[in-house]
Each structure stands twice: as C-alpha cells, then as structure tokens.
C-alpha cells in the first residue's frame, strides 16, 4: 500500500519563536572545520521588489569542503563533528540574513560526473503554501560549465543561481532570492 505524503501548509508570519530562536544555526561549520571560510548573505525579495520583513526563513544544506555530506547515504562519512552542513535563519526587516560556513566541495551526480560546488536552499515564508527549493552556485567557478543541474536551466536564467562576491569583502558572497519578476530566481520541482 502506498501512503500519500501529507500536504504542506505555509509557515505563516509567526514562526520565529518556534523555529528560528537559535541564532547559532547561522553557522554551518564550527571553528576548526576544514576549508575556505565564507559568509553567505541572502536577501529575499517579492514581486514588488519589497523585502520579506521577518516573515521568511532560509534553510541550507551543503557538503563539506571536499564534497562529503554528514549523512549515512554518503559512504565517505565526515568524522570531525565540526561540520554540520545545516543552517537556518529568519530574514530580518530588510529581508536579509547571513550564514557562516565553508565553501562546499564537489558532489557526485547519479551519472558519475561531479556537480559544481553548490549549497541547497529551502525557503519558507508567509505566502508560500509549500517551501521552495533552489541552489546557490558560485560565480566564476570553472566547474559551473560542467554541472548537470545548471545544464537543465535555460541559459538566460542561470545567473539567478550564482552568488556574487561582495565588492568590499572577498570572504562574503551575496545571493538574492527573487520570488517574482524579471530576475525571478530559478526554483526546482523536486
């Protein structure tokens, strides 16, 4: 017998005290975790260009600096305990939140090729009846041209999945999640 997955409902605007009370979840990799430390700064914008004021939540899931997930499906394991790979923050009144992590390595595709470094993003918000999936890739990474997921995205929309270096701070990458409009972010049906 097949059971049908329970329907999603919006997280609404008032999830803060239930889900995002712990700002420590803004750090995906504790001090001492291997790899290049980066900050990943998000801004979430609606169809009017307005930020989501405190009523959106971003969750991240990523591999470590050599492309291993801390999960039993990844046979290579990740034993240090310093890398969690999971993050969760609410957006502030300007629609922004910033995570601390390490730049992920490359993860294998089912066809055996290697994916470009990427971070999985899950977005929840008032007005989203079901969460949205997208991915952060890194602008100018030479592996992007070989990535099997980016290859599925129409070329003119690929730039919406690229985080960009902050002009003043090379350790910070910026990524806008645009829910609607000319620069609408690519979202995935998973």
């Amino acid at each position, binding site marked *: 017998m*097949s*059971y*049908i*997955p*329970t*329907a*999603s*409902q*919006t*997280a*609404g*605007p*008032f999830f803060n*005290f*239930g*889900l995002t009370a712990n700002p420590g979840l803004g750090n995906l990799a504790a001090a001492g975790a291997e790899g290049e430390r980066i900050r990943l700064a998000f801004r979430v914008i*609606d*169809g009017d260009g*307005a930020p*989501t004021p405190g009523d959106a939540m971003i*969750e991240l*899931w990523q*591999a470590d600096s050599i492309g291993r*997930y*801390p*999960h*039993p*499906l*990844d046979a290579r394991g990740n034993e240090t305990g310093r890398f969690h*790979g*999971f993050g969760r923050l609410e957006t502030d009144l300007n629609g922004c939140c910033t995570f601390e992590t390490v730049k992920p390595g490359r*993860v*294998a*595709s*089912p066809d055996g090729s290697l*994916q470009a470094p*990427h971070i*999985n993003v*899950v977005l*929840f*918000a*008032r*007005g*989203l*009846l*079901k*969460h*949205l999936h997208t991915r952060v890739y890194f602008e100018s990474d030479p592996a992007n041209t070989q990535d099997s*997921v980016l290859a*599925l*995205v129409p070329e003119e*929309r690929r730039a919406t999945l690229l985080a960009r270096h902050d002009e003043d701070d090379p350790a910070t990458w910026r990524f806008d999640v645009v*829910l*609607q409009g000319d620069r*609408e972010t*690519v*979202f*995935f*049906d*998973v």
Partner: protein
Amino acid sequence: MIEYPRTPPGTQPAYFHEAYRATHRRAPRQPLICLPHTLSELSGPLYGHNPIGETDNDLTRHFPDPPQGERIIVAGRVLDEDGRGVPGALIEIWQANAAGRYRHSRDNHLAPLDPNFRGAGRALTDAQGNYRFTTIKPGAYPWRNHDNAWRPAHIHFSLFGSGLLSRLVTQMYFPNDPLIPLDPMLSAIPDREARQRLVSSFDLSITEPEWALGYRFDIVLRGRRCTPFEEPQP
C-alpha cells in the same frame, strides 16, 4: 541511489492561490525546473544528536504555573510512503494561545497574551515513529486576508525525516471546526482527501481520564526506503 516518487497531482497546494492574498506577490510565476534527485537532495540534516529537553513536548510545563485554556494531547505516528514508522524524526510545533494570540512581536490581535504559555515545543519520534505532545487547544484568530477572515484553530508542524526531500512544514486542524470550509490555505489543496488528512481526529485512546482530551494526527513524509540510520536518543 533511487529517486523518491513525485507527489501525486492535487495532493499538495499550488503556489499561487487567488483566495490567499499573500501568494499574489510571492508565488513564483516561472515554471519550476524538474530536478533529478542527487545525493544533495537524498541526504539531509540529521537531528538525532540534538538534545531534547524533558518538558520540550509538554507546552503546559514551560512555566511554573499552568497556562489558561483547554489542555489537550496531540499524538500520532510519522510514516514513510510505505506506511513504515520513521524513527528519530524531529518534530517542532508552534501555535497561538487559547485566546488566539501568538507570542510574537508582530501579532497585533487584541487578545490577551498568557504569561504561562510560550507555544513552542519539539519531540523526536520513537523507534516506531510515534510522537506525543501535551499543549493547550489554540484559539481561532482574525487575519486581514479578506473581509471578516478568521483562521481555523491550528497547530503548526515542522518535520525533518531521512532526507532533504522529506522536509515538511504543515498545519494540523481540529475536527468539526466551522471555519475549515472557509479557509483559503486549506482550499489551496485541490484534493479533498488530502485536505481532510490535515484535520486531526478525536481519539479516546489518547485521551487521559480526568486530565485531557486526545487528538490523533498521523503524518506521512516523502520517501520509501526508510533508513533507520540513527536510533533516537533515550
């Protein structure tokens, strides 16, 4: 690695729903791009190692004095698509108090806050996928979606299963609530049975004599090969 089944049409809400106003400027307009499932999607955050406090699943015991309202027990099982219990799943809940007000700085509803009720809890499912919360029955409250709009009483649920694709945030409703047929969030789910599955059922076997009424709410997460990768912590 095997891909998860896709969810049957009509059993999940659409992103754009005319009657739910906040979707108008937030629902994506471009078609979503179908993503093959890779290790990135099939793996997911594990919470089994996170310490869960003794009273985390009893929202009536977060302050020295009990909260106002009708004490209830909400219990059930978390299952995968084969109907097998999902062990070690993290469940987080949050809700309004008995008067229909959230402990949130931007909830302006003119109803009293309860100093003895925060309204958030969490639990891990046991080896068979069972969970249990003690809480207060939340009140209905108005919202500004349309003229004279009221949300049916509900408890928000957030769940982490075995992988990123199992992630679920939903709301549990109460049986025989007259507001349910009027609710735009529920009507966004096309399939009638899928809507009905979000409504808990009164359950005398969960009810505790001289103490609290019991409601059953079973939840199905995506995934067929439930991987018992981690025993829940004692």
